């Protein structure tokens, strides 16, 4: 098929509603609002639940902070609380980026630029999220046994040996998966930005 034939095919294609435009602004607005609410709920609800869990865990560590009797445990406690507060903020930030102001009548290139920049920022935030989640996993492992059973696992040399080996393997696979998952998105966004800058 030649390019001219492509043009013919494009021109021949007609929509079922062509020449039958029915615009009912009230109906359009209602349908749009309903869809928007549904979409928002689908995105925001898990965010809220996740944030609530993080805050509850931070509160739990805060209330039992007195039980942490060594500098290492106290350090892990402070770090855990900070991470539990930071992770929901990052998550909300990346979600907010997706619903940020849309300027529908600007030029297509401007929209693409904003779109590609957002994609790059989103992937960076996701990578940061993975790294911080891993750090939280380690600090929580140290804290949990002490806070729930009163045992200080950090005094056990085998704990460090096994947890770090397992943690390292986990991090290796998990970060590779994240890298693969977002590689195409990031690559496409960067290529698009390069082309728009040319």
């Amino acid at each position, binding site marked *: 098929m030649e390019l001219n034939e492509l043009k013919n095919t494009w021109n021949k294609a007609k929509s079922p509603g062509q020449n039958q435009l029915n615009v009912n602004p009230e109906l359009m607005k209602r349908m749009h609002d309903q869809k928007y609410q549904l979409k928002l709920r689908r995105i925001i609800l898990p965010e809220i639940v996740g944030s609530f869990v993080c805050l509850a865990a931070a509160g739990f560590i805060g209330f039992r902070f007195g039980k942490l009797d060594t500098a290492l445990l106290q350090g892990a406690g402070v770090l855990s609380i900070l991470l539990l507060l930071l992770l929901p903020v990052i998550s909300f930030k990346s979600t907010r980026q*997706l619903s940020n102001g849309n300027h529908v009548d*600007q030029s297509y290139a401007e929209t693409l630029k904003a779109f590609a920049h957002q994609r790059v920022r989103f992937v960076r935030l996701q990578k940061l999220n993975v790294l911080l989640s891993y750090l939280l996993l380690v600090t929580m492992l140290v804290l949990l046994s002490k806070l729930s059973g009163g045992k200080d696992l950090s005094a056990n040399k085998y704990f460090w040996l096994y947890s770090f080996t397992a943690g390292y393997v986990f991090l290796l696979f998990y970060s590779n998966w994240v890298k693969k998952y977002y590689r195409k998105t990031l690559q496409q966004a960067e290529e698009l930005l390069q082309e728009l800058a040319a």
Partner: protein
Amino acid sequence: MDKNESFIAAIKGSEGTIFKIASVYADGAEDRNDLVQEINYQLWRSFDTFNQKSSVNTWIYRVAMNVAIYHLKAAKKRVPTVSIDDQLMHSRETEQDEEAARWTLLKQSIEALNLLDKGIVILYLEDKSYEEIAEIVGISVSNVGTKLSRIKEKLKQQLNNQL
């Protein structure tokens, strides 16, 4: 003339264009219908702020293509698929299979392009001049020429590979 009447008068005749743009950016019939609805809604919403700086046509294309991009942003996971869109082709029955196959081929070729090229090629297929394409996309006229010749090459290659 109230807002609705002026709006209908402004976009009358562009329904097919909106539908085709949505078909190229959306994934499947349901997604396409959602996108058509969203484009119409955003056109109606932004009609108040449309200040005649550009032509109605330029405004319609810009809004339609920008909304399509925002639609991509909202769809978290998008697996590109190509379905034969029976609603889109209204040819006589004997020609239908051939036309549907051509439409599928055309859609596949456009889908393989990046978002910038996709926008430019849609406008080329809509018979827009280089000046109009430059205004809608927001790049220089000479850039449109350079990009279009590259896109045509890419499309030719893809068509040769697919046939």
